[in-house]
């Protein structure tokens, strides 16, 4: 490697970092302008005119069915696949025609099944990019430790291991560490968690969210798993064939208001369940329940149960926190003391919990209801199966109405445009 290439590489990286450093983000904006890829001998382009802006520090997920060109689009950003048309700008700089080797050293790249080189140790793998960009040995050694620490692996233990001595999840962590080693402003991830088991994948996703909170890189993430997209993405681009953007929006907007049948088809049959993740308990109706406190005399409790017409009553402790469920039968057997009567309240949800958590709690409760608590754990109400079902039905109905209205607006706007165009044309003819 020549000395000039080295210095050019490092100054390039600092320029990009410096350009966005003022905003407090370490990421860089990526702009794709009418980006296309055509393979010779194939009349239909593989990627057809993608235009999108990915803001600095944002995690954007490209999601779509296999073969829709999402990976191709990603690989055009670091020019592993050379675009045949359009431009790529990173941090304002046009990189469409710069030296691809220099470009790639400023862009982290993590792929499925980690892509670690099996003949190098973990440390050697992580050190690759810093070594190529000409860092000093001491700095590289420090950096390797720092990166292992960052991805949650013990540096002393994993430093000298070979990739085949690691589990799939550990390999993937090292892969991410390698991608981030030279501190690139941009990170591209091509289905990085596609080859690990579901539990590990969940962990890795949580780790990535944590990392992104610390680092604020600009991340472009490709997956075909819509749930992964919802979990990770600040924004999601749903792509159809030839990388046409069907919808590019926040996860909430895509779930509640899919742009068309393709998107709603891709969101899938689980939309109602996924929707539960985006709604909080405080957004739904919480029913009141007859309650008594531990200080109330037994006779009073009896009366309340009889008066309420329900079979059960909730016993609160002195701080107003849910304590026990009391059935009529429990009261009969209580014989003057409530110390042993009733079933303790095991599971509660807060008003900030997602409806999905609430549903989980309701499903595992043998009476099908869960107590909702306030900030200090005090009783605020109860959510049961019926309430949940009703609210979900209402939510979905509202979403549907929103979507219809949205479509209506779009059609009106389109109608308006055509009318304008026609009038313009008519006026033009009249003028002639």
């Amino acid at each position, binding site marked *: 490697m020549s000395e000039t290439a080295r210095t050019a590489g490092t100054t390039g990286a600092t320029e990009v970092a410096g350009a966005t450093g003022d905003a407090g983000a370490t990421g860089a904006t990526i702009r794709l302008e009418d980006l296309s890829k055509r393979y010779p001998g194939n009349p239909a382009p593989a990627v057809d005119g993608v235009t999108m802006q990915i803001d600095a520090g944002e995690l954007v997920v490209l999601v779509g069915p296999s073969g829709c060109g999402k990976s191709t689009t990603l690989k055009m950003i670091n020019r592993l696949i050379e675009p045949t048309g359009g431009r790529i700008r990173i941090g304002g700089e046009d990189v469409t025609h710069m030296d691809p080797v220099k470009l*790639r050293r400023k862009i982290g790249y993590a*792929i499925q099944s980690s892509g*670690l*080189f*099996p003949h190098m140790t973990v440390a050697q793998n992580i050190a690759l*990019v810093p070594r190529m960009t000409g860092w000093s040995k001491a700095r590289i050694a420090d950096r390797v430790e720092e990166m292992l620490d960052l991805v949650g692996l013990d540096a002393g233990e994993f430093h000298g291991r070979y990739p*085949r001595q690691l589990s799939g999840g550990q390999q993937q962590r090292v892969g991410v560490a*390698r991608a981030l080693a030279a501190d690139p402003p941009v990170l591209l991830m091509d289905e990085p968690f596609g080859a690990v088991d579901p539990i590990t994948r969940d962990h890795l996703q949580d780790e990535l969210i944590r990392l992104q909170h610390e680092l604020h890189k600009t991340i472009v993430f490709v997956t075909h798993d819509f749930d992964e997209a919802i979990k990770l993405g600040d924004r999601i681009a749903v792509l159809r064939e030839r990388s046409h953007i069907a919808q590019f929006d926040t996860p909430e907007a895509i779930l509640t208001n899919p742009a068309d049948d393709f998107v709603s088809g891709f969101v899938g049959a689980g939309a109602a369940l996924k929707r539960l993740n985006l709604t909080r308990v405080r957004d739904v109706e919480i029913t009141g329940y007859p309650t008594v406190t531990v200080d109330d005399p037994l006779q009073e409790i009896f009366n309340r149960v009889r008066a309420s017409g329900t079979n059960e009553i909730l016993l609160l402790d002195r701080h107003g926190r849910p304590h026990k469920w009391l059935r009529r039968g429990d009261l009969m057997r209580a014989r003057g003391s409530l110390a042993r009567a009733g079933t303790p309240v095991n599971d509660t949800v807060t008003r900030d919990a997602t409806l999905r958590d609430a549903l989980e709690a309701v499903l595992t409760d043998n009476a099908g209801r869960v107590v909702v608590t306030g900030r200090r754990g005090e009783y605020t109400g109860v959510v049961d199966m019926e309430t949940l079902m009703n609210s979900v039905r209402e939510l979905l109905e509202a979403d549907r109405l929103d979507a219809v209205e949205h479509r209506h607006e779009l059609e009106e706007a389109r109608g308006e445009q055509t009318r304008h165009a026609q009038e313009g044309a008519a006026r033009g003819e009249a003028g002639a």
Partner: protein
Amino acid sequence: MNFWDYLGSRHQQLLADAYQHASAVLQCMVVATVLGVAIGVLTYRSDWAGTLATTATTTLLTIPSLAMIGLLIPVVGLGVPPTVIALTLYGLLPIVRNAIVGLRGVDPSLVDAATGIGMSRPARLVRVELPLAWPPILTGIRVSTQMLMGIAAIAAYASGPGLGNEIFRGIASLGSRNALNQVLAGTLGIIVLALLFDAAYVVVGRLTVPRGIRV
């Protein structure tokens, strides 16, 4: 004179021949390895070039070694030159083929990863592809060496160096007292050399195959 007496009385001559034999094979193997890996590196990327290289070297191997040396004598004369040329050409085939197979067998996702993290083509070849393709290439070199041990014996026909001289001398004087001993000494010598070389390759493999991919 029995075989052991023969060995005792001629051991100096035999050792000299064995040394020359080993040295010729070793030097030709070095040249063949360099050429073979180079050909592999130049051709593995393209379908037709790879096939061409493999077919060409296979065709070379089908020429009988005696005929090949015979054909070379009028062009380069007697002695060392025809021996070296013939041995190098024969040594190419397994190396070229294993180099191509090995380089093509490197996991494409690793090549993709190497390019993606900013390795230039030469860096990728030296740091990733060749180390990963090294075990099959080494196997090719081993097979090649075994083959050349035998073929080098034919070189004596062109007054080349090596243990082949013993064998040819024995064959030329069939019926004489030492004929059988000579042929036997040459043949056994070649077998012992081949085994020694093979043992050396095991050591070389231990030393050069990276620990992470050792089986």
